[in-house]
């Protein structure tokens, strides 16, 4: 029955917290309510399970003894300084921003973790203002089911395996990864880590993971490289540097997306302007220009112009 077990667990925590030194199992059995009337092996099993359940909650139960000769029966204790939330006090503006942070996660497990953290702070007498700043809505969504198992793997430094579909027509391939970091970019989540099969850092998009992410090794079995290296590996997400410039004719009153990043603009008398538009990849620029239809004419360089014409022919259904 839950109530009886909760009482026993609470009494165990209190016993280990208040006692000086390590409390041997035999004493625990005597003084902690709920263990008394048990056969030894039943008590052993129950006690082991109880300890494990408390440790899963983050309660630091240590085993040991003060007797260097090992004659004394080993025991257990909880050191207050490892158990308690340290002193913390927040200024009103800090409390307001923590209250705001409590609204960020739109993911069940993360929202629950935030709530538990907030409750611990309230229990410690730290008031946070959860109604603050209704005018700000900072939401981060996590829709990918792979997120939580990958976060746990990152947390525990445990390798994982999963099926990944990189290029949709090809079949999903099995990957093995030592995950380093999970990150969100423009609303999509990615994991970066060391690809054990291909050997080297790789970035994966969580929405392309097919099926479950499964543990594939021991916790603590690898190290995560320094932040710079992790950031470099995730660099594929950042927009590439725009090293080239195209010359593009743009009808006046249109082409705003290009005008905003144009490095030069010559106004023409014929109702058209000539823009200098920086870009990193000719194909990507050609795709962007195509969207403007007849309001834009690519002049230079040649490969941008060619690709744009090809793309437009593609729409018409003809081979260029």
């Amino acid at each position, binding site marked *: 029955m839950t109530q009886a077990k909760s009482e026993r667990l609470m009494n165990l925590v209190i016993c280990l917290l208040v006692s000086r030194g390590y409390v041997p199992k035999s004493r625990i059995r005597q003084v902690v309510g709920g263990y008394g009337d048990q056969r030894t092996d039943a008590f052993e099993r129950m006690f082991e399970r109880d300890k494990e359940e408390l440790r899963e909650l983050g309660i630091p139960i240590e085993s040991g003894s003060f007797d260097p000769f090992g004659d004394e029966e080993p025991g257990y204790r909880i050191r207050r300084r490892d158990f308690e939330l340290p002193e913390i006090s927040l200024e009103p503006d800090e409390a307001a921003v923590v209250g705001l942070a409590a609204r960020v996660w739109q993911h069940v497990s993360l929202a629950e973790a935030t709530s538990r953290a907030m409750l611990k702070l309230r229990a410690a007498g730290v008031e946070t203002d959860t109604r603050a700043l209704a005018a700000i809505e900072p939401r981060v969504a996590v829709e990918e089911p792979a997120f939580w198992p990958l976060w746990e793997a*990152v947390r525990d430094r445990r390798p994982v395996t999963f099926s990944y579909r990189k290029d949709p027509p090809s079949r999903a391939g099995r990957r093995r990864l030592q995950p380093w970091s999970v990150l969100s970019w423009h609303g999509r989540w990615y994991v970066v880590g060391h690809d054990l099969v291909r050997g080297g850092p790789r970035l994966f998009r969580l929405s392309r993971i097919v099926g479950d992410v499964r543990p594939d090794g021991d916790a603590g079995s690898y190290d995560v490289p320094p932040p710079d290296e992790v950031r470099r590996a995730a660099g594929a997400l950042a927009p590439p540097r725009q090293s080239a410039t195209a010359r593009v004719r743009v009808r006046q009153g249109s082409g705003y997306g290009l005008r905003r990043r144009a490095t030069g603009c010559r106004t023409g008398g014929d109702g058209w302007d000539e823009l200098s538009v920086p870009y990193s990849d000719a194909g990507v620029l050609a795709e962007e220009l195509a969207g403007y239809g007849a309001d834009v004419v690519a002049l230079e360089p040649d490969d941008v112009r060619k690709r744009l014409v090809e793309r437009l022919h593609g729409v018409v259904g003809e081979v260029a």
Partner: protein
Amino acid sequence: MSVSHSGAQLQVERLLSLLPYLLSHPNSRLADVAELFGVTERQLLRDLNVLWFSGLPGLAMGDYIEVDMEAVEGEGVISVSNADYLARPLRLGTDEALALIVALRTLAAMPGSYDRGAIDRAIGKLERAAGSAAERAADVRVEVDGDSVADVAATIRRALDDKRRLRLSYWVPGRDETTERDVDPMRLALADGRLYLEGWCRRAEAERLFRLDRITAIEVLDVPAAVPPQARIRDLSAGIFQPSPDDELVTLEVTPAGRWVAEYYPCESVSEVAGGGLVIKLRVSDRRWLRRMVLRLGGTGRVVDPPDLAAEVVADAHEALAAYDEPPA
């Protein structure tokens, strides 16, 4: 994958916060505490009962935690004592430190959300309080397109704080036009890693969302904001793109290279076709937007239905091609 906790485990987890809370907030109302801890009053009474039967080892007279059950049943207030050994809650766990610190760092990256100094100080205090549990918080990151829109965000924040109207120039890519609007700001929102202004557009006389990186000019007017009472903030949990069932239904066919369309936009239906392509149905409120998208797709996608829209797109492409003096093959 996650360890799932037993009923007693969850209860004990709650009790380890409940007890210190009650000790530091004497005479709290049962109803308020239940709401704070997210449990029913009945469950809270069961929790208090567990505390009532807990205490110092040996559980002799005077060892038990004292709960004034009469006050609970009578006035509905809770008073506990004789439990100073649990006057402080358990330390933050790794997941808890992660959730709170990553959330704070996300706010720090969101200009206009809050005073950066306060956020940095709060992060510092929480990291110190969490100790080693906070180490992993650096392994989860939310990137926000904040820097390029910091000034715009600051202006909007000023207007929100002072309750003033904004005048802005806004670029709509789908229509390739920049228009000027007067907007009464309602809130600054972060969605999909980007910042948005949600406000009452005086021209449209309706709520509108403006992506900050598409605001080309902005100023705070010396006019008080007058957001009408019927204005509703949008539930953005379903995403920014929220097509309406009244919008036109368009059917597209895309090659494997065009599959990104289904990943990028909310679609009404997506079906596989032989060869790795897709047939996609989606709702479109403005044909101009779709025409531009299909032009960009080039040969990797085409409009299947409605046929007059397909013809419009082909005509757009012909018109654009005319500038290149290339005869069709």
